[in-house]
Every structure is written in C-alpha cells, then in structure tokens.
C-alpha cells in the first residue's frame, strides 16, 4: 500500500512530467567516433598497381584494380576501386600498401611503423629506475645518439638504438642500477641460479646448530668464498662474463627465505601436502610426509599451514664482496627473524572466556 502511495506521489510531481515529456537520446549516438575505422579512401595518384591490396583483402569482391583507357598522350592510370557493399573495413589493404604516401588510407593502424635494429643483440642493458640516482654519467658515456634518453626525469635505454657496447655499465657509479641481461642460454642460466641458491642454503644448514643457539642480542655473520661457486658455474656454462653477472644478481643484496623442517614434530596430518603449490611435499604410507628441498619455491605456505610447527622459516640476507681474486659472499641473520623453536609451555595462562 505504501509503495502505491509513493508511486502516486512520484508521478504527481512536476519534475517527473517534465522528464517524461522531454526525454531524448544523446546526439553522439549518430556520430562516428574519431577512432572508428571507416571504409578505405583511395588516393589514385600514388598507386603503382602492385596488387598487394587485392591479395590482402579477405573479401573476394571488395577490391578491384582498374585501369583507365589509354589516350594518345598518356598510358591509362591503374588504381584500386573499393566496393563498399563487400568491404569489411578491416584496413588490411591500407596496411600492406607499399607506396609512400599510402594509396589507400583506412583508420590509423597503418600509420604506425615498427622500429627495428639490424644488429642482433645477445645482451640487453636495463636501468633500474628504483636504484638510479640520475647522475647521467651513462648518458655521457654512451657513444650512440638516442640510445639512452631522459624523459620525465627518468633515464631509460632504448633497445632499438642500443648497440650493447657496455660503456654505460662501466660508467655507472651505483651497484645494480644498470643491469646487463643475457638473452641466450636461458636454461643454463636457470641451472646456475638454482645451483647458487641451493649452495647458499646448504651453507646455512651446516651452521644450523649455531643459528639455533644464537643469543637474542647477537647478529649471525658468516662469509662464503666465491671461488668454488664460480668454478662450478663455469662448468655449467663457460661464459665468464655471463656467470659473473648472474651470480652478482642472485647474491648481491638478496634476501632469502630458508625453510626449516623439524621432522620429529610431524604427526602425519598431511595438511601441508595439498597446500604446497609445487607439490614438493609428498606423502606415502611407507615413508610418511616428505619434503623435497630441490622443488621448493620458498613460499612459506607450509609454515602457515602446519599446526605443529614442523615447517618454519627465517630470512637471511646476502651481500657480495666482489674482489678480483678472493671474492666472498657475506651472510647475515637477525635472531628476531628466526622461528620459535622452543616448545610452548603447556600450562600457559590462557585468556578466560566470558
């Protein structure tokens, strides 16, 4: 009942009557927007009669090449004629037209020209905008005009102009602000990264006892010589520059989650088996729940899932001290980041429920 009254009240108002009688469509529904690709326009005088447009056209009857009649003075002109009754406005004809300026114009797509370099590059140089201090030393060092540009107070490298000489990398005063990325041997690069990370994890695992008994006010520090890692990496791929770049990128200023696995606490509840995104935790009736560290993604989902504190993790920080002969990786660890290893006292005063 109240809704009926409300309706009557609504309809009785003057503004409703005004809106009802004055309703009309917006005018822009009859206008074509600027971006709309309409039927192609032919500019006869530029045509060279190559027939590329007719070959590209998906509709069999849309474009025909026509030739004017020869006169005594001039040979007849060849040009395409577009049948609007069959054209699908795809703009392919304009895109393939090789003349400059184009004989056929359709939309805007064909005006975009792709830039390319003739130099095949194996190395890309990239500026990390977060670390870059805008000193512009790379800009001065660059020997190619326009390869390094400054736009909106940001320095960037244009890969289509860069010749990968590496002068910019040498001039850069900030470690890691300018990076060299290697394009070939991707699988080997992955293998090296995996090897280095598992080596670092292994080194920390060996010191487990020491880390466990770390006092709360001390910092755990250790150094790892770079030489053996370097040598093993060179066995995978014998490109010294590439290996050096990768190891630097992997270890320098890296933070790594180290997953700890205390099997003695495990009750075989198998909650973690389903949660692991990579399937690195498996269960079989014979061996129970097992974790495969090689497959592990270090996401720490198992740590969040496990109700018994089997899985734990801590964060270790790495820094590369890159000297020519005896380079070393420095590892630091804060005790506040370590997982709680002591068992929770059983008679802990719980909050009383009201």
């Amino acid at each position, binding site marked *: 009942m109240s809704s009926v009254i409300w309706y009557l009240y609504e309809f009785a108002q003057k503004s409703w009557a005004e809106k009802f009688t004055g*309703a009309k*469509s*917006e005018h822009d*529904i*009859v*206008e*074509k927007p600027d971006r*709309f690709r309409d039927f192609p326009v032919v500019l006869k005088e530029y045509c060279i009669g190559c027939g590329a447009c007719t070959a590209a056209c*998906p*509709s*069999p*009857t849309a474009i025909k090449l026509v030739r004017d009649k020869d006169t005594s003075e001039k040979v007849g002109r060849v040009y395409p004629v577009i*049948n*609007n*009754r*069959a*054209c*699908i*406005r795809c703009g392919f004809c304009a895109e393939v037209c090789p003349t400059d300026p184009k004989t056929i114009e359709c939309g805007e797509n064909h005006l975009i020209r792709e830039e390319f370099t003739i130099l095949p590059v194996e190395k890309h140089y990239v500026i990390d905008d977060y670390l870059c201090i805008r000193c512009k030393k790379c800009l001065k060092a660059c020997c190619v005009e326009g390869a390094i540009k400054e736009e909106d107070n940001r320095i960037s490298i244009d890969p289509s102009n860069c010749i990968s000489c590496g002068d910019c990398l040498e001039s850069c005063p900030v470690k890691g602000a300018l990076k060299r990325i290697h394009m070939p041997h991707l699988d080997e690069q992955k293998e090296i990264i995996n090897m280095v990370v598992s080596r670092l994890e292994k080194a920390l695992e060996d010191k487990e006892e020491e880390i466990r008994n770390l006092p709360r006010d001390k910092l755990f520090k250790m150094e790892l010589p770079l030489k053996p890692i370097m040598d093993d990496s060179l066995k995978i791929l014998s490109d010294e520059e590439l290996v050096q770049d990768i190891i630097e990128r992997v270890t320098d200023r890296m933070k790594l989650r180290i997953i700890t696995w205390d099997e003695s606490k495990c009750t075989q509840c198998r909650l973690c088996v389903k949660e692991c995104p990579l399937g690195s935790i498996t269960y079989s009736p014979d061996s129970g729940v097992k974790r495969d560290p090689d497959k592990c993604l270090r996401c720490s989902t198992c740590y969040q899932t496990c109700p018994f504190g089997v899985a734990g993790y801590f964060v270790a920080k790495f820094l590369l001290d890159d000297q020519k002969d005896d380079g070393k990786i420095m590892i630091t660890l804060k005790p506040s980041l370590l997982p709680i290893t002591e068992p929770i006292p059983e008679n802990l005063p719980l909050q009383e429920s009201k």
Partner: protein
Amino acid sequence: MLNTLKDIVRKSSIHVCLVNTGGCNGCDIEVVALLSPRYDLEQYGIYVHNNPREADVILVTGAVTDQWLENLRRIYTKAPEPKVVVAIGNCPLTGDVFNQEGGSVYAPVSDFIPVDAEISGCPPRPSEILEAILSVVPGAIALKGRQNK
C-alpha cells in the same frame, strides 16, 4: 480519411522480424545493441519479433545458404502485407567474405526476395541501421499499403 489514419498507424509502429540466413552473427549483435538503452529502438516505435506473421519488416542478415533458399521465401510469404525487406550488412548484398570461389552461398538476397533498403558495412554501426530503417521503412510501408488497396 481511413487511409490517412492507416498511414499514421503504419508509420508509427514498425514491427520487425530478424532473419539470419547464414552470416557470422555480427550484424545481429549490432541489432541487439539497438535494443539497449543507449539507442533505445522502441522510442521510434520499432518492435522486434521473432515471428514473421507479426512483422511488417523483415531484416535479413547473412548470405543465403543452401538450407535457407526455400525457408527465406517461406518466411517472406508468411509476413502480412504491406511488407518491407531490409538487408543489413554486406552478406545479403554481395556475400562478403563467404562468397569465396567454390563456396555455397547464394548472394545477393535480392535474387530471391525483393529488397527495399540496403545497409552496407561489416557490420554497419547501430546508428546506420537505425537511420536506414527510419528513413525508408515508414514511407515504404505506407506506400505499399495504399497500392495493395
């Protein structure tokens, strides 16, 4: 007097039946866009049916395929007089991309039923369809209605 009254009624309520005789459905989607609040087809007195017996106007989209040859004529005969046929899109006009060598479409539609208005485009914009229907159909219906008297 009666005739002018009939003219007014015929012009102001146009009942339309959409027939796709084997196209890609693109034009049908543009017609559906016409039904949306942005274009609001019914404010012009155009109503869409799926039944040719209720329609004055048959909108044909699509090239005519083998299966549609007879059915298209049947649909045409079922629409009550006076009736108008509007071909939407390039398919009913030339067969468009389906009219390949060795293909089995029978374009144009005007070979089988008389077509009163043509709208080119693949697909045409909704506003173009609306414009064509409004500029041709009311007059054509009124004219045909008087001729059949």
